[in-house]
């Protein structure tokens, strides 16, 4: 029940004041304006006046003697705009023009008059409820209240603090645009608009968060995307019922299909080019205010292992690097468990001379292979985590200390075998070569259960684990699209863009799994 109530509230925000009035608890705060400025001001001060950053500036309108007040928040509103355009218009120009009509003026100053004749700024809106006014003022608008007027004017003076555009930190490329999303939603949507004139690009706005409301934009290309997909995305977003949404990760976790799965079912990216490419394929992007990470749905596992560079480079290196990445994914997941299986169970499967040298290096090691491998794997995970936290100047130094000294010393001390150090290093390097941090960390995490399976059943256990994992993956869906497609369900025509990256000449159609309205990508 609670859920439904909330959904309808979010859905009808701002459009349905009647409903708000019906609720008895909120009657006091949503009281409409009276024509008494003093009374209105009292009401407002009660609502937001206790905040030190809210400024009330009272003045006379021109020299008419009509009391007016503007309310704005220091830091959020553009003071420059207020001082140079709004205040002079109201205090200086106003009086000059309408001096003659002074006696008749009071009481007849309508919002229309101010809007049409006086204020020379682009965004003006009239509001009637104090609550709405208060919330808008707190997000940067300036309110103008005039004695005798039944409604207040909201002036769009919001000025968000933005930072310069930088190269995306988490997804650096050798070749490709050096542009990353920023924290400002309007900047981010403008990146999408700027990347060529996209026909029929729709940006639909939603608000999420119960207490801290944030804007969220769902982006798609109208004549490509499957309408049912858009409907599904919008439904799931409308169902979000949470106090605040600090980052798009919250949205991701609240709209994903299976929250118990270790695999991410929503892709996040900092790269506008990646988002545009996804939109062109018929996917939907979700942009949240306040974060540079944009979500893309639906995704497949193969997408997670792709990089935009696969397409920017020519197809032969693109294919080679992509295959290398698949190999790296397998290595990151299975190398330590294969090591354990071979050492503890299947010494007969190692080539004889290698077996002899492994025996030689391991003969002093007091632990079974599992303990030894867990020890080093956990050490390297801690190192990775520490490297993230360390201040930049210390980072590389600590990397050397951790990687070289701990590895070398552990071998010297006879705690681990040198072969294991190679295995651990290979695993770590492989997992970092995966272009998506979120899938990389999934694979790094999954190698621990794989190691335990290997230590219990040997290769048989590794295969059991693989079967368990793939059967989960086969079942998993992201917004109705099977996670392993186009491998499962099998669709050979789309393997052009799975393991290999065929020449662009040959990729003429959009992915079929997305049920796009317009399947032709290239003539």
């Amino acid at each position: 029940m609670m859920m439904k109530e909330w959904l309808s509230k979010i859905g009808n925000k701002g459009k349905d004041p009647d409903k708000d009035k019906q609720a008895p608890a909120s009657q006091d705060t949503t009281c409409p304006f009276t024509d008494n400025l003093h009374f209105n001001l009292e009401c407002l001060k009660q609502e937001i006046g206790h905040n030190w950053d809210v400024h009330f500036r009272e003045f006379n309108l021109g020299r008419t003697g009509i009391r007016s007040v503007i309310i704005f928040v220091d830091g959020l509103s553009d003071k420059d705009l207020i001082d140079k355009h709004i205040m002079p218009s109201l205090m200086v120009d106003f009086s000059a023009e309408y001096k003659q009509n002074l006696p008749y003026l009071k009481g007849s100053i309508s919002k229309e008059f101010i809007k049409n004749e006086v204020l020379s700024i682009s965004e003006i809106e009239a509001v009637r409820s104090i609550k709405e006014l208060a919330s808008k003022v707190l997000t940067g608008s300036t309110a103008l209240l005039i004695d005798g007027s039944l409604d207040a004017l909201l002036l769009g003076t919001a000025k968000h603090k933005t930072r310069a555009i930088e190269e995306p930190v988490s997804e650096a490329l050798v070749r490709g645009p050096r542009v990353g999303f920023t924290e400002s939603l309007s900047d981010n949507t403008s990146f999408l608009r700027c990347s060529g004139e996209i026909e029929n690009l729709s940006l639909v706005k939603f608000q999420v968060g119960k207490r801290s409301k944030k804007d969220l934009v769902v982006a798609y290309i109208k004549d490509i995307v499957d309408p049912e997909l858009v409907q599904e995305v919008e439904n799931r977003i409308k169902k979000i019922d949470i106090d605040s949404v600090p980052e798009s990760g919250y949205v991701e976790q609240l709209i994903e299909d299976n929250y118990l799965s270790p695999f991410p079912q929503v892709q996040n990216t900092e790269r506008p080019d990646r988002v545009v490419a996804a939109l062109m394929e018929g996917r939907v992007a979700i942009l949240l205010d306040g974060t540079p990470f944009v979500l893309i749905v639906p995704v497949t596992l193969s997408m997670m292992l792709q990089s935009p560079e696969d397409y920017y480079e020519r197809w032969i290196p693109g294919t080679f690097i992509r295959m290398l990445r698949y190999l790296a994914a397998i290595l990151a997941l299975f190398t330590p468990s294969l090591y354990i299986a071979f050492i503890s169970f299947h010494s007969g499967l190692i080539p004889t001379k290698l077996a002899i040298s492994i025996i030689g290096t391991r003969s002093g090691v007091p632990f079974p292979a599992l303990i030894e491998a867990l020890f080093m794997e956990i050490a390297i995970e801690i190192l990775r985590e520490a490297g993230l936290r360390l201040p930049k100047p210390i980072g590389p130094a600590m990397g050397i200390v951790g990687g070289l000294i701990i590895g070398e010393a552990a071998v010297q001390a006879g705690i681990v075998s040198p072969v294991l150090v190679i295995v651990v290093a290979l695993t770590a390097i492989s997992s970092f070569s995966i272009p998506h941090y979120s899938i990389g960390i999934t694979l790094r995490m999954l190698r621990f259960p794989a190691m335990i399976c290997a230590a219990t059943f040997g290769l048989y256990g590794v295969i059991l684990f693989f079967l368990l994992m793939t059967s989960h993956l086969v079942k998993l869906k992201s917004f109705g699209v099977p996670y392993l497609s186009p491998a499962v369900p099998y669709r050979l025509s789309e393997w052009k863009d799975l393991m290999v990256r065929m020449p662009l000449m040959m990729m003429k159609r959009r992915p079929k799994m997305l049920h796009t309205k317009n399947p032709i990508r290239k003539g």
Partner: protein
Amino acid sequence: MKQSHSNTHPLFISLSVLLFLSLTGCWSSHEIEEQSLGIGLAFDKAKQSSIEKKLNEQGGAYSKRNLITTTYQFITPQVASSTTKQSGPQQKSYVNVSETGDSMHQMVRELSLRSEQPVTAHHMKVVVIGENLARSYKLEQLLDQNLRESELRPSCLVLISKGRASNTLETKKAGEIPAFRLAGIVENAYRTTRILPPMSHIKVESKIKSGSSFLMQKVLSADGQVKFAGAAVIDGKTHKMTGTLNEEELEGVTWITGKGKGGVVKSFDKETGQPIVYEIETMKSSIIPHVKRDSISFDVNIESVGRLSENWVVSAGTFKNEFLKNAEKSSEEEVKRLVGNVLEKMQKEYKADVAGFGNRLRIEHPKVWNKVKKDWDQRFSEAPINYDVKLTINDYGTTGGSKK
């Protein structure tokens, strides 16, 4: 309530899977460094080692007949670690231990009473059988345990040794591992026609089961050195060793089967008596059986292409076709001599078909084969065999005759 139940369901399953994993423990887990890698095996007539005797005196014996002495060559973790450390190998990089008894498996298990690291057979490279043993026991009896268990790979080689087999598993060179040495020599078949194609356990078994006579590589040993020399003839009926082919006879067999990958033929120039050496590049042989009523005969066509690799005839111009023709001729004569020599021995002395004549007959005349296969070795010894050899020199190397 209902919803929360469905959420906990997968959690419950994964938890029970984890519990299940911990219940089983580590099934059949044996850390690699807690085992000794068995790499070589030698079977000999019983001759107890001095350690065994001492142990027996103190009562370390069980009820057995002392028939066979098995020598195990293995690499223990201690040996492995001393050879892999940087200082290089100072002592022997292998361990040989002997056990005497009458059951192969029981003898291996006796070893577990003598060492903390039990021997595994996954990496077994070579099994050497002493000639004395091979003459008095059936091969299938000696190799039964090896073939029956799955640990020892069917690709493990089987060799016959002239003297005591355990001597072939000894070396005096530091760092050399005798079992690897034996297995490595077999790889050299591309350089000489005097090595038989590798005879693995699985091939031995198929030969035994098919009931045909066959050859096995023989190896000699002296002072910790070994040499592959000739072959042992294993009789198809008794499965025991009946005789030996020397190196030249083995060469003849290789020419008949055409399975050689390389090697040389040395012949002498007719005029000067100086040696001429022909090196084989390719070798092809076809055995064609002819059946006329009851009489079976064979034609053997041997063809080979090669190069003149050594020529002591100084006066000859090797650029001249005439000389090359002569060289081909004398090499052909030599090959014919080798082939004729070994055919004589196979048919007259051993009465055993070890060169695959029966197999060709089976393929081309299966009905005839069914009739004669019971006493094939006897029929073979009476069959007339014609052979023809054709060698072609297509390359005389990078030097020619002198200017005149």
